[in-house]
């Protein structure tokens, strides 16, 4: 499956000394189909294809579930409402209160978009979570970062916003020279970075893990081993174990994908709620 780096026909118990080669980060650097020839570009790669699919799926999902909303919901509409109710009751109301209701559509957008991009890692044929490329989480994290600043500045003014973010209440004056730089770096540099990297890293690692299981199962499957039928049978058993692990981790990964989408949106909501609130 994810065995681009593997030689064809390299299986366990072979007689030409071919060892297992685990999938590498090469997975996340698909060869470009079209190169732009500009510095800092990747060209058109599988990521763009999967991104387009994910975007179309998200848009189609939302369009077809809510295009004709009724008081008595259809099945599809109920699904869309489930997302709205989940985001409202579990995320925005908890972090921003009623004032955060105007951010519900944004948070629903983020949640569905991120979840769809994540799930692309499990769709046969695509099998590449868009969010395993840092560029895409970075778009969303940067957007939230800008919105966070914009909300804080519009509500409280430039000075009050930056002061609230850099000078924590209740810190004695003599500690401020230490605390202010820490807070500034933490809130204005590290936090947006971790916001993006958290999502990216989890999807990256999860995808790599699944790839290892898939590659191992492929590698260990050698019933026609030249070393005899017994080892051939053993190889099938190994392969079965790897397949089982792959399936279990696939289910687990699906859960992680939903959780990461939730965590990203929750943090976005917390940040914006914080900006709305001003100084603590």
């Amino acid at each position, binding site marked *: 499956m994810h065995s681009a*780096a593997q030689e064809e026909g390299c299986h366990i118990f072979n007689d030409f000394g071919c060892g297992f080669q685990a999938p*590498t*980060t*090469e997975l*996340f*650097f698909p*060869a470009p189909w079209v190169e*732009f020839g*500009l510095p*800092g*570009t*990747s*060209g058109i790669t599988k*990521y*763009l294809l999967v*991104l*387009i699919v*994910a*975007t179309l799926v*998200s*848009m189609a999902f*939302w*369009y077809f579930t*809510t*295009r004709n*909303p*009724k*008081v*008595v*919901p259809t099945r599809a*509409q109920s699904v*869309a*409402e489930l997302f*709205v109710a989940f985001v409202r009751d579990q995320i925005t109301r908890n972090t921003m209160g009623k004032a955060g209701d105007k951010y519900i*559509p*944004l948070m*629903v*957008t983020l949640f*569905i*978009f991120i979840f769809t991009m994540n799930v692309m890692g499990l769709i046969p044929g695509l099998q590449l979570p*868009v969010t395993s*490329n*840092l*560029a*895409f989480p*970075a*778009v*969303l994290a940067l*957007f939230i970062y800008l919105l966070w600043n914009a909300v804080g500045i519009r509500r409280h003014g430039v000075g009050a916003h930056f002061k609230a973010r850099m000078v924590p209440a209740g810190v004695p004056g003599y500690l401020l020279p230490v605390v202010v730089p820490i807070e500034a770096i933490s809130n204005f540099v590290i936090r947006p970075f971790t916001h993006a*990297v958290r999502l990216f890293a989890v999807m*990256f690692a999860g995808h790599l893990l699944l790839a290892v299981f898939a590659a191992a199962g492929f590698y260990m499957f050698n019933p026609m081993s030249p070393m005899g039928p017994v080892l051939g049978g053993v190889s099938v058993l190994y392969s079965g174990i790897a397949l089982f692990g792959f399936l279990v981790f696939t289910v687990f990964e699906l859960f992680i994908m939903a959780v990461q989408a939730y965590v990203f949106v929750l943090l976005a909501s917390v940040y914006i709620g914080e900006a709305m609130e001003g100084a603590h």
Partner: protein
Amino acid sequence: MILAQGHEEPNILRIHWDEFTFGTIAFVLFAVVVYRMWPRLMAALDERANQIEGGIERAQKAEAEAEEIRQQYREKLEEAHREYARELEKAKEQRAAIIAEAREEAQAEAQRILDAAHAQIEADRQHAFAQLRGEIGALSTDLAARIVGETLSDTAAQNRVIDRFLDELERSGTASQAEVR
């Protein structure tokens, strides 16, 4: 082999600006869809909330109305019971009054009859007495004339004798008459 094609270092934290741009476009496109569809979905949700609230309100109103009617019926029933009791009481009183009246009338009637009988008896007695007095007078004089042998021809004297006699008789008779009464 891994880095063989490497026209660049596979830094997993790289951000290609073209991918960043595509990601932005994709995000904006999807956000546009969600934001465009949003008001209609919210309108449906609000309408549902309204209808549910309206339904609850209507149910509460109906309940209150039912309670009021029940109260009215209960009051009417109680009123009917009281009315019945009053009527019964009145009927009892009337019965007692009728009985008392009838009894009184009967007594009065009896008294009247008794009185009439007494008057009749008295009258009869008077009559008999008067008649008796005449007869007794005649008999007495007749008897006396036979005993004395002479006729009391003198009417005046005759009457004096008779009256005296009768007065005596009456005096003794009053006592005996009182006993009878």
